[in-house]
């Protein structure tokens, strides 16, 4: 299990990276943490001609508060998301989800941007970013642009990134004190990709009883992070009581129709999504996340 041959270059700026990509005659790939790319290379599932190592591009690092947004640089490691005081304060959903991402050694190298660029439907961060209504910053030949998370995830491993574009940072509206977030997932073993995962952000009014805004995003239940709008509708403007939760669980079949995968039938996967929805809704109501 050894990679096919390829050329390698290390770049120090975004511009250089894009340049190298465009001028490569064969297939080029960016290399960030390598925690998804290297397994694919080792298995010869992927065989680029050129690897462009962006891992030392300074401008892609760091977690900062910019106005009312939390900016997370693409090269931020999973472990930094897990321990960052800024993330804990302004995007606690990510800190909570990060615990479910892989194992310690993978979190030491894997990057936040890499996870979003790859857009594995079972990954935690894409679901969180969508639940948090974040903006994705992308750099290409023609400069930088921002894409709303809603418009970023297009399909199975498919995003708004065009070939040669780099995901540079993610801007997350800093969390408000009245917002509640919850992330939970079901997996066979600790650190495995989820059987079902759910990221949620909610706003409660009327003394914290009535749910007035909600984004529910599932991972591992479709070809991309799946927003569950029918379930959201069933919970909106309710006190998230047992009846409302049941209605939302019922409505979930309009949001999700998972394929059979691994050793789970589509019926079992939908069932697990419903169980998870029940647990997360309960936690949101109790503010117990």
């Amino acid at each position, binding site marked *: 299990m050894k990679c096919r041959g390829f050329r390698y270059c290390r770049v120090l700026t975004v511009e250089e990276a894009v340049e190298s990509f465009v001028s490569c005659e064969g297939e080029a790939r960016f290399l960030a943490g390598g925690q998804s790319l290297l397994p694919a290379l080792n*298995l010869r599932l992927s065989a680029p001609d050129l690897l462009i190592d962006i891992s030392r591009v300074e401008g892609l690092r760091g977690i900062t508060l910019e106005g009312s947004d939390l900016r997370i640089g693409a090269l931020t490691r999973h472990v930094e998301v897990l321990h960052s005081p800024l993330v804990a304060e302004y995007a606690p959903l990510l800190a909570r989800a990060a615990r479910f991402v892989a194992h310690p050694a993978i979190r030491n190298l894997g990057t936040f941007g890499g996870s979003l660029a790859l857009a594995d439907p079972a990954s935690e961060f894409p679901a969180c970013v969508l639940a948090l209504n974040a903006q994705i910053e992308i750099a290409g030949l023609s400069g930088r642009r921002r894409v709303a998370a809603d418009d970023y995830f297009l399909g199975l491993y498919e995003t708004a990134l065009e070939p040669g574009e780099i995901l540079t940072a993610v801007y997350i509206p800093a969390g408000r004190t009245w917002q509640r977030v919850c992330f939970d997932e079901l997996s066979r073993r600790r650190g495995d990709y989820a059987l079902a995962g759910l990221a949620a952000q909610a706003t409660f009014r009327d003394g914290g009883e009535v749910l007035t805004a909600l984004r529910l995003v599932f991972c591992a239940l479709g070809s991309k992070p799946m927003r569950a709008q029918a379930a959201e509708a069933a919970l909106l403007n309710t006190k998230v009581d047992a009846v409302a939760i049941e209605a939302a669980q019922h409505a979930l079949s309009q949001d999700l129709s998972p394929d059979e995968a691994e050793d789970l039938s589509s019926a079992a996967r939908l069932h697990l999504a419903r169980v998870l929805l029940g647990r997360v809704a309960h936690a949101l109501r109790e503010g117990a996340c």
Partner: protein
Amino acid sequence: MSNASDIPFAKTTKYIGAALPRATAKRFLFGRGRYTDDIEVPRMLSAAFLRCPYAHARILAIDTTNARKFPGVHSILTGVDLARICRPWVGTLTHFAGMKSAPQLPLAMEKAVWSGHPIAIVIAETRAQAEDALEAIQVEFVELPAVVDALDGLNEHSALINEAAGDNLIYATQIEAGTIAQAFEDAEIVEADFIFGRHTAVTMEPRSILANFDPSTGRLDVHQSTQTPYQFQDVYARHFNLSEANVRVVAPDVGGSFGMKLHVYHEDMAVVGASIISGRPVKFTADRMESFASDIHARDHRVRARLAVSSEGILRGFDVDDVTGVGPFSTYPRTSVVEGNQVVRLIGAAYRVTDYRAALRVVAQNKNQMSQYRAVGHPVAFAVTEYLVDLAARKVGLDPFEIRRRNYLTQDMYPHTTATGYQIERLSLEICLEKLHEVMDYAAIVAEQERLRRTGVYRGIGIATYVEITNPSPAFYGVGGGHVSAQDGCILKVTQSGEIQCMISVTEQGQGTEAIIAQIVAEAVGTDIATVRVFTGDTDMTPAGGAAWACRGAGVGGETALQAGKKLKKRIVEVAGAILHCPAHHLTLVDGRIVDAQQHTRMTLRELAHLSYFRSDLLPAGRPAELTVAHHHGPSGFPFAFTNGIHGSLVEVDVETGIVKILKHWVVEDCGTVINPLLVEEQIRGGVVQGLGAALFEECRYSASGQLLNGSMADYLVPMACEMPDIEVYHVETPTRDTELGAKGCGEAGTAASSAAALNAVNNALSVFGASITQIPMTPERILRAIGAVG
């Protein structure tokens, strides 16, 4: 005054029975282990294999022209090249009457019979270059219909894997004892259909071999990650027509084996052949994908079983049908029928049951080969037995402990012959049962279970008994013509400074074989263990013997070392007597000192060695100091030693998700004399975890066309630290009287019944829903379906 050397070892407690850490394991903590893949030799080439992508296919043509031109490629060999120098092997033994299996060659010839079957070997300067060239080999295949499900394979219209055999039935056997019809008459009857999935060994170190043939001398030197070097010396010599004395097989550090590394694999034969043809050293280390596709798989049984029980809870008879799918052919040299054979012979072994019927069918399929893996057949036999015993208990209203109490073999019944003909010297079933009851704090956990159930938390408690075969005599393989040694040999030599070197044929894969042998030798000789060094795993260095299989290291290897040690001690005191002019029987050896009847030190072993080796002129004429002894020992008396014990498992089932959390596991085991409790306990724990993996996670899943669906470490779920519980281990000691040491074996006891205990525990938790599950692994989906949460 008694002669000190006559005191049985069991009464001295210096080393045998001591919880000593393993001296030789220290190098692992410094990164200084030496595994086969770590070894580099000059002019070495690396091998990679082209494998059949189909489960069953005819090979029309192989074109290697382009691939040969790739950088670094030395040569590419196909089936015909190796068939010229390798005699085919056939995985049958004569004591399994009527069994049939197709002859095998290193690489597929006209037909490939499983997805993963090697077709060509590339040898190149690096593994990466060999893999590059693989991609340029072109093969013309015609895909054939595949036999995937064992039952389908028995269908008369099924595709045939071995056309010459006429059907896909490799072996069938029946056992009838007593009057089964009567036993089931007027009895309560419980029954179930079981499915045992395929799983595999997933040793941390993949299989690896480095073959180095020297054409100038005809010498073959093989370093191989194996547990049975002598067996491979024999295989390579016979099948490649080499002088056996010129074949050396070394097993360096071995990163786990568990039975998986004692079978003959096509790749190993191809690598040896490639080295012979090329005259160069050739190394192959399986990558993990290759391991899943070619390391033997285990289990794969469908069992239908019934148990008759009287209304008082007395077990009356078992009726069992087992169909097992073993892959395209029977494994060499031990066959793939031993697993099934042990299933149908071990069911019910712990109980007073004389009426018994069982039928076994061993079927060929286009899947990877299935064969012996840790606890061969036992986990299946005891899951079936113990599930049915629990079911019977429920039917007649008894507690699981009580029904076992009423039906176990008891101390007054030994020696005992089971309904299936196994002769059992002595077990301690009832003692282990009561001990488990106590250490589990059974009443308390049952009360806790009931309390939690009212809060919607579903816990389950399960127990499962095992009776395990160890220390096998040639009755296992030898009588059927198998070149599998059941005896062991040991050489002890006193070094020039009075230390001891021990060369023994049992081998080390981390169990601690070398550590216990050192303990036994130090005890038997009467010397300081720090001066004893044990060497294993090299056919040039140690006597020939069976090495590691069927938990025989302590029982057979240990007895060999004990007797060798006693022989050496006798030699030493004889020499000392001659030097000291004192009758030898007045002398003995204590901590490396030669002492007399008054316990006075007369000389040290160091002094004796010095005189013997450097001043032989001072020894009495004609009495050279022969400070090297050899001893061989093979089991005699009972054909096998049987161990026993019982597992307890406490689980919590999330009935919404079907996810099971194992909270705690207990084992009370009896492996006879415990030589080193630290090591026995770790053997048990490791074994338990392999069984729990099988119970909940591990399964080789195949598509309808015979493709392995989850053959990678990301997709095949091995048990990891977070999912495994703490495991408490307790000992009861019933030494075998067939040997002086009294040790049986403990390597497989952990695996033998942990899956059964977990199965019973989950079923105990599900019983409130009127649900049950009889398939392992117990995946979330299967549990959800059992309780009807998913339709």
